[in-house]
Each structure stands twice: as C-alpha cells, then as structure tokens.
C-alpha cells in the first residue's frame, strides 16, 4: 500500500510575509523524517498545510497521492497529527477522549491499560481539563496511537515536556517509525539526531539542505579538522588564515572548505608545532545546523 507524503512547490503568504517559498520534498518510505529549522522558518506552516489547517497560496501537499486541499477527508484518512499546542477535549475524561479519537476513525477499541503503561498516562477517569500540560500531551499522543495512523505529523512534540516525558515521547517515536512515516518538526538537535533517519533543513521558507542524519553530519564534519597537539600550540593566529577555535588546551578545530588542497595546507602549517593526531571533527548536526542556518 502506498504510504507517501509530498510537497510540490508549496508557497504560503500571510499578507506581505512569505512563510513558505516553493518547498518541495517527497517522503515515500517508512521512518522518521526531521524537519529542522529555527522559529519562524516555516515548519509549522508546512505542517498546517499538510493537516488542512491552512491552504497553500500555491503549490500542493499530497498525502498518499491525494491533494490535501482538494480532498482533505480522503487525504487525512491515514494521518494523525500533533500541530502547535493541541489539547484533548477538556470536558472528557482521559478514557473518553482516547476512545472518542478511535471511534471517530472507525479504529478498534483501544487497549487503554496498555496505552496507560506505555505512555505513563494519568488516571483514566480524570477530566482532561484537570491535567498538567505534560499529561495532556501524553493523553493526546495516546489518542493518536489509538487511531493507528500510517502517517504521523508531529510539530515540535516535545515542546514544554519535562525530561522524563520527552524520553517517553522519543521512545514512542522510535517505536512508531518502524512501520509508518513520522514527519517531525523540531529545533532540538539532540532529539532529531536520535530519532530521525533523514533531515530537511528549512530556513526562511525554503529547504536549504537535506540528507540522512549520517550524511548531513559527515558532510559538515568533513569541513572541519580536529588537530591534537602534544602541548598547547602558540602563535596560531599568525600562522593560520582559516577560522579556528580551541577545544580545551591541546585540541584545535580548524574550519576550511573541505578541499584536499586546503586540508594539506593546514596540516603542513601545523605539523611543525607538534601534532599528535588529527582527523575530521565530529561536529555532527550541531555544526551542520550552524553552517546551514546560521
């Protein structure tokens, strides 16, 4: 069965502000896809278009080949979403809300005890209006799980959660991504690096970089060289024309354009100062984010 999420030249304007500027991507395999960018980059706007909360100014969002704008009911049939800061219905108990979420999709009656244990849910008889933010978020996630969607769209799902709740969420995503698509927007690099398989960097409404977590990390890591000296080197300022920074006393990270020529030039200059070891700096996602988005 087709499980696919794609954006075709998605553009969204809010008056004079261009929130999305021709975003295109295609996700067609199971796994967790990170949608990474700073606040205001266009992450939530994209998520809202995919969940029919916003209409694109131009372009199309397709879910399983169905245009969300034209046929929202059909497109959203297999989609569970957590966008912005949603709340379960306050007048319902935890049990009632989760059962309602399943019933509205025609899903089988959920195993509430299993969900309670898995997500550390509060007392099932408690009214949702009386829950803390973290509890409400877990109840909401339980409702999504009860709906058994084949695609999950999660917009900064760990926002406002304490470390324990965030861990529960990450464990859940890792489990869910095994047999479905999870599109996860976040600006938390740690979270993205441990749950996502593939990344899209969005900045000022455009996708500016994409690739698997390993490839992206490697790509940017390879543009920095980490050199270890026997003792703290002196006079680096006059010696190196490249940007560099100390990591502790004896380690220096030097940034360059990734070319072999520059790499050789840097090492030739540094060898006389007593190099003990060197290698690609393992800067990973953080550096990728810093370089792509600034």
């Amino acid at each position, binding site marked *: 069965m087709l499980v696919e999420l794609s954006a075709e030249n998605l553009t969204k304007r*809010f008056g004079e502000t261009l929130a999305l500027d021709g975003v295109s991507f295609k996700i067609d395999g199971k796994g967790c896809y990170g949608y990474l960018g700073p606040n205001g980059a266009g992450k939530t706007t994209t998520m*809202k278009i995919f*969940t*029919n*909360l*916003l*209409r694109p100014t131009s372009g199309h969002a397709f879910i399983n080949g169905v245009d969300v704008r034209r046929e*929202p*009911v*059909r*497109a*959203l*049939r297999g*989609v569970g*979403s*957590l*966008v*912005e*800061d*949603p*709340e*379960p*219905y*306050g*007048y*319902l108990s935890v049990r*009632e809300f989760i059962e*309602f*979420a399943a*019933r*509205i*999709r*025609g899903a089988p009656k959920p195993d509430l005890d299993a969900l309670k244990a898995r997500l550390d849910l509060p007392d099932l008889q408690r009214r949702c209006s009386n829950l803390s933010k973290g509890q409400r978020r877990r109840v*909401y996630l339980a*409702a999504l799980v009860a709906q058994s969607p084949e695609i999950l769209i999660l917009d900064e799902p760990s926002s406002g959660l304490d470390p324990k709740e965030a861990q529960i969420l990450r464990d859940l995503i890792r489990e869910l991504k095994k047999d479905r698509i999870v599109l996860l927007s976040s600006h938390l690099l740690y979270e993205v690096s441990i749950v996502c398989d593939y990344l899209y960097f969005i900045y000022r409404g455009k996708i500016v970089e994409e690739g698997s977590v390993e490839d992206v990390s490697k790509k940017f890591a390879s543009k920095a060289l980490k050199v270890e000296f026997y003792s703290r080197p002196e006079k680096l300022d006059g010696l190196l024309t490249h940007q560099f920074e100390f990591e502790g006393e004896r380690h220096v990270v030097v940034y360059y354009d990734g070319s072999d020529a520059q790499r050789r030039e840097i090492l030739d200059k540094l060898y006389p100062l007593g190099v003990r070891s060197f290698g690609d700096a393992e800067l990973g996602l953080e550096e990728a984010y810093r370089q792509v988005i600034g």
Partner: protein
Amino acid sequence: MVFRVLYSENLKFYTRTRRFQVILPLFALLSALEPLLVLAGVVPKPPDVYAFTQGALAQFSEYVLLACAVLAGDAISRDFSREGYFTLTQPVRRSEIMLARFLSAFTAALIVLLVIVGIGVGFSEYMYSGVVPNIIQITLVGLLYAASLTAFVMMFSSLSKSAALSIVTAILVLIIAMPIVQSVVEFLSGVEPWFLITYASEVISNLAQQSYPPHLVTERFGSRTIYLYSPGTLEGVAIIFGYLVVSGLVAWAVYSRKELK
C-alpha cells in the same frame, strides 16, 4: 457513523457545560415563579388560560433566546482554540462537524425549552384545568424559533475566535439592537419589520390569544400615527425559517474556508 459519534460527543459537551447546568434549573425556577406567586396569593390570578399563557410566553421567548445564545455561542469558535487542532485535523467534513454542533446545541436548547413548556403546561392544567387550544402549534413554532436562533448565533460564532465575544454579540443583537430597530421601523416609519426574527417570534404569543390579532393596527397620538404590526402565522414561520437557512449558509461558508493561522 462519524456523524453519530460527533453528535453524541457534542451533546455530551453541551450538557456538561456549566452554562447548561446553570440555565436549566434557573429558567425552570423562573418559569415556575409567577404561577407559584399566583398560587400563594401574592399576585392576582390571570382571568383565563389565554392571559396566563400569554404572560408565560412573554418570558418563554426571552429564555429561548438566551438559552440558544449561551449554548450555541461557541459552537464554531471553539474550533479556533487548541481543541480545534484535534477536531479539524480529523478526516471529517466540516459540514458534518457543523451539522453535529448545530443539532447538539439545538438539542441542549430543546431540553431547556421542553422543561419550560412542561412547567407552563403543568401549571395551566392545575390552575385552569386545560391549556390553550394552539399549544401544539405554539410548541412547534417555538422549536423552529429555537433552531433558527441556534443557527443565527452559530453564524456569529463562525465570525469570531472568542466564544464569549460571539455570545455577547448575539445577545446584544437579539435583545437590544433588533428591538430598537423594530421600534423605529415599525412604530415611527410604518414599515413592517419583516426582516427581524424578533418580530417574527411574536407569532408564538399571538397564537396564544383567543383571537389572532390583525396584521396592522394604527393609532393616532396627536399629530403622529403609530403603526403596530403583527406577523401572520405563515409569514412569521417563513421569516424564522429564512433566518435558519440564511444563517446556516453564512456560518457554513465562513467555517468551511476558515484557516487556523
């Protein structure tokens, strides 16, 4: 199936709101107050069942209006709060959501309305050993009026993000603005205010009269002529029904296109 789920959930919502839990006993108490005062001999007993029913219906219209405004005021606007991020992302047509909301708000208002009618009928039977002959028609037009008011208030709800604002606006329009416009148009200008639902609702109390009032009565006060219109039964029903249709269409047009920015 989905519609039934939506309807029952929304009815649960309305019947669990503090609004409903306050207005139901409050309006029941207020409806029973005057007959109880009559029975206690504090106020004089109306001469016949017609006068008694007319007095009761004068309050009835206000209660229906307030019940509908208070209950349906957030019927749509609550989707533009955090709960909407769940509701509107479900694979359900907005028309179905709106219809379920309308019917559940109407059902909740209906419960209030039937309790009031039941109290009125009960006292009428006890005090006059009967009810006015048109009680069925009065109840049916009352139901249509409640449905129409619910749709009218939902229209305001679709235009506002705040439930409180839509409730207050609807009440101000129905209780203050429309009667003022009606007075100016009807009494002073001599034009029939056929475009006002509050005017059309006079059908309900007119039906309780022994003989239905004439369509137009004019009286002279010095050099000034005062006009007093009464809607015919069919005319009143048509106006009330027109409000139901137009308000429903406007609410639907706004709701179906609204975005959650």
